[in-house]
């Protein structure tokens, strides 16, 4: 599998792509925080945040459709929130068997879904406009423990190698077992054990690969410290975008709290 088949980065020439990863990371998290701080039923504030996101999405040239389509992945989780429509006390709107859907419950549910949708768009935009290694160094610059970031870097480096390995295992299983549509052979426990054996052999292959990698690192002078270049200084435009962005979000939060 080629690296691009899994990576969510979409290369393009845009001001959003050029923005410093540290600034993008801070702004994305701040926007999600602003959505979390916006009270329920503050529809105008929600619309404002969504409008802001749409403008950035247009500027980023990754395609509105792509961002919206990827953002839908959070929606299955809304099932978990569906029950608030019944459990929130308030004026009943409809009866559904023994349960009453209340007005307050319905409005709370809609607010939760909107908040989730706004938040995930910010995360999608960050991932689509920033190569993952840049996100990693952005995190390190923001004082996330060095070791953790280094582990994240290794994960990203070997994710695609091991995904290939897993696909070879799956192909081998398919080649050896007839599976009439949807039904595998053998009992469920047997099928699970086969999958377990595959996981075990993938584990051993990964473990032994890590031993070879470690030996190769030692041969190249690794002493337990992961050394990287210092991040470049923020350009004036990064400072400006970051400061303006944070001020706009702060203003949105304040307006949301007051009204």
């Amino acid at each position, binding site marked *: 599998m080629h690296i691009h088949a899994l990576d969510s980065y979409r290369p393009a020439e845009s001001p959003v792509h050029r923005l410093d990863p540290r600034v993008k990371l801070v702004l*994305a*998290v701040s926007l*999600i*925080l602003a*959505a*979390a*701080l916006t009270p329920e039923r503050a529809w105008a504030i929600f619309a404002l945040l969504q409008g802001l996101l749409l403008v950035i999405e247009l500027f980023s040239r990754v395609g509105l459709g792509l961002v919206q389509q*990827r*953002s839908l*992945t959070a929606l299955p*989780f809304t099932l*978990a*929130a569906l*029950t608030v429509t019944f*459990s929130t*006390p*308030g004026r009943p709107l409809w009866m559904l068997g023994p349960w009453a859907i209340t007005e307050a419950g319905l409005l709370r549910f809609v607010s*939760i879904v909107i908040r*989730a949708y706004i*938040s*995930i768009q910010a*995360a999608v935009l960050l*991932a689509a406009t920033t190569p*993952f290694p840049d996100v990693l160094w952005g995190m390190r610059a923001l004082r996330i423990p060095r*070791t*953790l970031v*280094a*582990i*994240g870097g*290794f*994960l*990203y*480096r070997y*994710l695609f190698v*091991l*995904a290939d390995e*897993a*696909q070879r*295992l799956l192909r081998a299983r398919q080649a050896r077992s007839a599976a009439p549509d949807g*039904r595998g052979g053998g009992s469920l426990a047997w099928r*699970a*054990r086969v*999958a*377990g*054996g*595959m*996981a*075990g*052999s993938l*584990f*051993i292959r*990964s*473990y032994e*690969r*890590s031993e070879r990698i*470690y030996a190769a*690192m030692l041969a190249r002078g690794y002493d*337990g410290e*992961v050394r990287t270049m210092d991040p470049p200084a923020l350009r004036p435009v990064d400072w400006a975008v970051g400061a303006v962005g944070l001020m706009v979000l702060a203003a949105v939060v304040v307006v949301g*709290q007051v009204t």
Partner: protein
Amino acid sequence: MLLSTVSPVPVPMHIPDGFLSLVVALIGWVVAVVGIGLALWRSREALGDRQVPLMGVLAAFIFAAQMLNFTVAGGTSGHFVGGALAAILLGPWAGMLVMTTVVAVQALLFQDGGLLVMGANITNMAIIAPLVAYGVYRGVRLLAGEERWGLLAGGAVAAWASVVVSATACAIELGFSGTSPIGVALPAMAGIHVLIGIGEGLITLGALALVSVVRPDLVEAGRSSARGGLRWVWAGLALALALTLISPLASPHPDGLERVAEDIGFLEAAQDAPYEIIPDYVFPGISNEALATIVAGVAGTIVVFGLAVGLAALYRRRAVSQA
């Protein structure tokens, strides 16, 4: 869908942003940061400069292993989460680090789970799950002595328990956030994951069976990196008890954030004033009810634990007398 190649089934445990109140998200971060800090320190002690390459590649392994699915019935398929296997084979601290990285990259790269609520997701899947898994695993192995069934049964039960306990923690967080009432979320989440956990248990069993034959040294490696086997058993049991104690408390707060906002006073125009409605809602004598639930939960946990100990002791005595 690109995502579906990595995660064939949308596991309903990665909480997206917007579903947790700010207070719950912050508590999740506090627990996560403390857990990660301890894990970084202890695993560095055990692994030295091998820490980064080993943890990194094995985190990629967990990701790739989640592609290994198997048909359950009629088009649905189970797949693998991996937290328990990581904790058993690498030890609990290293397992926590590996799972933390997996959860973080899932959120940052694939938007599987939110950024602001990442602390809570890490707490559920990367702190609680490996801890409970390791505690259960050590417990079964201590009871089984040197028997091989201890490794296999311990692994399977540990994997099952880790999935169920993380789902429980997830439901409790949703309950405290006012996103889903605990009375509905807890049985639903725990119920689904009692089933999902069986698949996880069987896959972990299969993986351990293979690894223990091909590389028996790796199975014992996880043991040496965490000293004090019995202490892990107690830690796992204490955590399960703590969750049982917390869960009934989650119900009286329909919305944690709103409540705190009220207390601090920055949200004066409280919408709808839900607290006037609560007294004549359902909760008269809530303290007794909560207390009863707590007592029942504690009793249940002790009974199940006692049963497990008794059965294992019985089995062992028979095995000894046969030998």
